[in-house]
């Protein structure tokens, strides 16, 4: 198992109060698996990714990635952030090659790797553009190329398509699936979009409302590659509706607790 999460909890201090964001989560991911995590907003699913990224410290429990206990951020876990966090002062290729640059790899290798991944995401001709000159979808591709370029063992994706319009979002889902098929990375992908979770995942993990616990872990046995038309098929709907029912209970519970 390339990712092992063992009874991990995370508590935040909010003023005097203590808020439990992640409650006793255990989870394993096999190498090359694409796992999506859905849950009501504020359920701690992003927190789990931040813990795995090493940006936050767990209150209890342990996490191992590729056998190593997670203690701090590192390039073995590639994080794609919700707001992408591209460096606006760097060109597209400057962003994609950044990790190799700080890791002190030779310039020739940097250029070659940067080119390869820009090719993969279809942005070779934009390599000298600055992020502000790109559309939302193009920025997503740059962020994806940047995280792939340093060849992490695991990709952690935190609602990366959350800010895109519906059409661009579908295109990016197809694109991500194609890229994943060529790189075969292990992926943990957090989203609140049920269709996205089912379409992309080998497994869909449903989180409860806060505190975040794993409510269900569903295998999605839809064949790959999955064309976007698959979203119209009865098999897809069946999976989707199962996730939807599970999630609906949690959303309602979260709402009741808020109004209580």
């Amino acid at each position, binding site marked *: 198992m390339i990712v092992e999460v063992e009874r991990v909890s995370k508590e935040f201090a909010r003023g005097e109060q203590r808020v439990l964001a992640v409650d006793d989560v255990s989870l394993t991911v096999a190498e090359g698996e694409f796992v999506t995590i859905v849950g009501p907003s504020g359920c701690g699913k992003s927190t789990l990714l931040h813990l795995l990224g090493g940006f936050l410290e767990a209150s209890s429990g342990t996490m191992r990635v590729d056998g190593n206990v997670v203690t701090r*951020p590192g390039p073995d876990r*590639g*994080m794609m952030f919700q*707001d992408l966090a591209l*460096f*606006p*002062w760097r060109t597209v290729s400057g962003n994609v090659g*950044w990790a190799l640059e*700080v890791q002190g790899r030779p310039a020739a290798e940097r250029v070659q790797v940067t080119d390869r991944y820009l090719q993969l995401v279809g942005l070779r001709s934009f390599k000298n553009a600055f992020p502000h000159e790109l559309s939302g979808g193009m920025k997503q591709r740059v962020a994806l190329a940047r995280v792939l370029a340093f060849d992490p063992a695991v990709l952690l994706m935190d609602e990366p398509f959350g800010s895109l319009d519906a059409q661009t979002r579908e295109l990016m889902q197809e694109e991500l699936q194609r890229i994943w098929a060529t790189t075969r990375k292990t992926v943990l992908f957090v989203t609140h979009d049920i269709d996205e979770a089912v379409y992309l995942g080998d497994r869909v993990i449903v989180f409860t409302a806060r505190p975040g616990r794993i409510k269900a872990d569903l295998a999605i046995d839809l064949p790959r590659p999955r064309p976007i038309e698959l979203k119209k098929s009865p098999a897809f709907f069946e999976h989707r509706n199962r996730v939807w029912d599970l999630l609906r209970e949690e959303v309602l519970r979260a709402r009741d607790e808020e109004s209580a």
Partner: protein
Amino acid sequence: MRRAAEGLAIPVAVLAVWEALSATGVLPRYVSRPSAVGAELSQLVGSGDVVQHAAVSLYRSMAGLAIGALSGVVLGLLSGSIRAFAVFFDPLVSFTNPVPKIAILPVLIVWFGITDTSKIVLIAITTFYPCFIAAYAGVRQVQPAWIWAARNMGARADQVFRKVIVPAASPHILGGLRIALALAFILMFASEAIGTAHRAGLGYLVIFAESGGRHDLMLAAITAIGLLGFAADRLLLLVARRVLRWQPEVFRA
């Protein structure tokens, strides 16, 4: 070119009206005619006098600015990044910033005499503040996600500082430098007007002309200060646009 022409239209019109009013005797004689000021300025340029005065003034202001800006930016960046620096400098700067820096010139004159040194120190102290404040604010507005992304990609702390914090804060820093540049010229004039050792500097020239009743010379020297300040500001904008070409909307003059 067209924008330059638009920008010049009103000043040229004002000068023309001024000239006409002086020529017809509507304005009193002590208001020098623009043509007389121009003639004096070209004579100053021709004789090389103005170049000498300007060189001395530029040395004082730019040496002071270099020291003040460098120390302000470095300490501002460090205070934004390292708590121990912020704990010391933040209250110190807040406390001393409102003091008009020209007020300490008498103290500096006691320490360093009426020399270039006292002027340079005054200008360095004055320009330190906007640079420190800008760099400090710049660091504090760096998006935490950029730092997370950098650490995720394996950057060491010094690389995060050099390759994320410094470029991310650079728009603020350049804004601070622009304010500092103007202050350097203002303090240059003020300190030269108060006293100069070698009868050199544009500020000295203004006071010298004033005491001799040479209003044409005085206005010519003031014009020279203005032109120098304008040229320096444009040069800084040019550099800023180059450094900040990744940021489309700022520093478009």
